[in-house]
């Protein structure tokens, strides 16, 4: 079973220290929720995991199956089985969904013998996943994320997740900016994909997405550290009491 291990991770953005020693282990098949107030470092963690050039690891390590990935470029991390569903998926005008998905699918699924999947294999898989997630055929002819509604963008992210079949998926505030219907569609999509082959890290500000994606573990990120971990009851507590009590707790600890 594959394992993603974040070990005493320190990271900075433009010289500002944001993560101050994050420890977390996600095994394939588990769903972890990472909650926290604005500015606690949630998105920094997501971007650092995938190797965004703006985010610098200043200490600690990220390991996939015991191997450090900190020195790897983002594409290599993707090939190791890491996936990030973006909070704000950027649009790439002029690149159709189809050609983008084909290129990404080939990049990730090219095997050790350098054998890329055939166009037929790709089409089969794509049609199957589009059906599974209820994505319309017309999606494929549109430019990547260009002019997509909030819901469409997030659904496109989940479609990519389904096609690329990573070992670990980080969902960075996938619920943000979605109305309740769109949220349900997206969250149900994730539930359909989740299973024993996928470890999920759901990063969220609100508890509502966790009604659909049931977490095995819930963690609270506060000022760049995980300050509390528990089961689903922790997310309910946060929903009820907000994030204020964390400050007191953090004060006590330090």
């Amino acid at each position, binding site marked *: 079973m594959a394992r993603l291990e974040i070990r005493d991770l320190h990271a900075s953005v433009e010289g500002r220290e944001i993560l101050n020693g994050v420890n977390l282990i996600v095994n394939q098949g588990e769903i972890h929720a990472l909650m926290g107030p604005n500015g606690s470092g949630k998105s920094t963690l997501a971007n650092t995991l995938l190797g965004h*050039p703006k985010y610098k690891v200043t200490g600690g390590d990220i390991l996939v199956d015991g191997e450090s990935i900190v020195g790897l470029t983002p*594409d290599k991390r*993707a090939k190791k089985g890491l996936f990030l569903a973006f909070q704000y*998926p*950027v649009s*790439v005008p002029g690149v159709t969904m189809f050609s983008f998905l084909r*290129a*990404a699918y080939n*990049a990730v699924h090219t095997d050790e013998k350098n054998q890329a999947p055939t166009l037929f294999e790709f089409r089969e898989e794509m049609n199957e996943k589009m059906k599974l997630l209820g994505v319309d055929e017309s999606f494929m002819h549109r430019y990547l994320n260009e002019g997509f509604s909030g819901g469409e963008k997030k659904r496109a992210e989940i479609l990519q997740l389904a096609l690329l079949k990573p070992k670990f998926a980080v969902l960075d505030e996938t619920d943000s900016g979605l109305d309740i219907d769109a949220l349900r569609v997206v969250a149900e999509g994730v539930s359909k994909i989740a299973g024993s082959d996928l470890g999920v890290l759901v990063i969220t500000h609100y508890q509502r997405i966790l009604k659909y994606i049931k977490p095995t573990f819930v963690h609270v990120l506060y000022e760049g550290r995980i300050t509390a971990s528990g089961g689903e009851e922790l997310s309910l507590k946060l929903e009820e009491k907000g994030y204020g009590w964390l400050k007191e707790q953090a004060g006590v600890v330090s």
Partner: protein
Amino acid sequence: MAQQTMGSFTEAAVEETSKSHGEPEWLREFRLESFRQFAKLPLEISPLYTKYTGLSSFDIGQFPLDHTPESIDLRTHFEGYLTGRETNVILQGNTRTIHIDLDESVAKGGLEVLGINEAISKNPGLMKEIFANKLVKSEREKYAAFNNAFFNTGTFIHVPRGLEVASPIRKIQLVRNPTTSIIDQTIIYAEEQSRVNFLEELYTRESARPYLLSSVTEVRAGPASTVDASTLQFLDERAVYLSNKEVDAPKDSKVNITSIFLGSSITRSRLNFDLNGRGANVDGFEVFFCNGKQRFDLESNLNHNSPDTTAAIHARGVLKDESQSIFKGMIKINHVAKNSNSYLAHHAMLLDKRARSDGIPGLDIDTNEVKATHSASVAQVDEEQVFYLEARGLPEDEAKKMIIVGFFEPVISRVPVEMAREGAKFIIEGKWRGERRRLVDRETLMAITGEAPVDVRQSSDVFERHYKYRA
């Protein structure tokens, strides 16, 4: 800056050009008057732009002008460029119109496509009228005047009233070691309610010396007509390429001009849209990719002279190595052009610190109740886009290539011929990789189109059925 000399381009040479084509007196006079303008005009007329003239300056005197008819082996020339299934095709080798083949149904419908000299001798009345009211005016631009004075080849397309030409008219210009400058006048005369889509492709087969290709294109659209005219400039690095395009868009007409400039050492383009009738609607799409030491100098203007007119110019370019570009553009809305809507945008992407691009859009508006927007940006490849694609498994290099090809895609997708679209993408990818790619051999074309072009030496179809090639 290069010394400006006239070299072969003298008044005597104008006389010689006119005589060698056996032209009527009115055309000789037109050429001579154009020559006077050419000799007199500075490189740049507008005081707004004079500081940028260095970008496209070159010595025109270095280029030859020769009236000796060139003898060309037709059959080998276009090998590789044709699949044999083309209709509505014009083949031009250097300054010679080699072959014109029209779809039977449109030919019956009255579509006329002629070499410019043939058009002048066949329809002197109509041509005299057109030249008396020339759209590309000699007094407005030095190299427009140059072309008007010295043109030695070209195409006349006449689409009669109401005729819709379904498949595109494709003009393939091939350059091979020219002994003279190629100075081309193309006139598209589309009458009321007609429809036509013209595509011009410029290729270099071989060149031993620097050469000049000057091109004037006039689009004389009729009321409620729809005209598309596209240029794909794939010339090699020995070319100096000059383009002057002028569009007359009358009442309810729709005109689209698409330009894809990839080749040449210097490209100088001047494009003017004149919206002269209520409800006229025009779009200009211009893209370029320059690398090495290429210099591209583009100016495109929207002139609103009537109410309820709509216009847009979308210009975008990618620059690599030490290349440089400038894009100038002006929206002019005159006092009667109420309720007009105009948009002018130039976006450039720099791939190297040494590359340079300037965008200078302007507005000149003499009435209220209009909407005019311009925008310009010069940026590097967007880091967030690169990261997004990388996070999906694409290496940085592939990610950037995808973004750049995508940057051009909306314009390339407007080109009506698949082979030409694929050719453009092939060249763009080559430029991105720093490879010097050319579309000249069968292998290349097979690689990009996935099919073998017809070997025209053995084909009885492409040339031999045409009366011009039986001799």
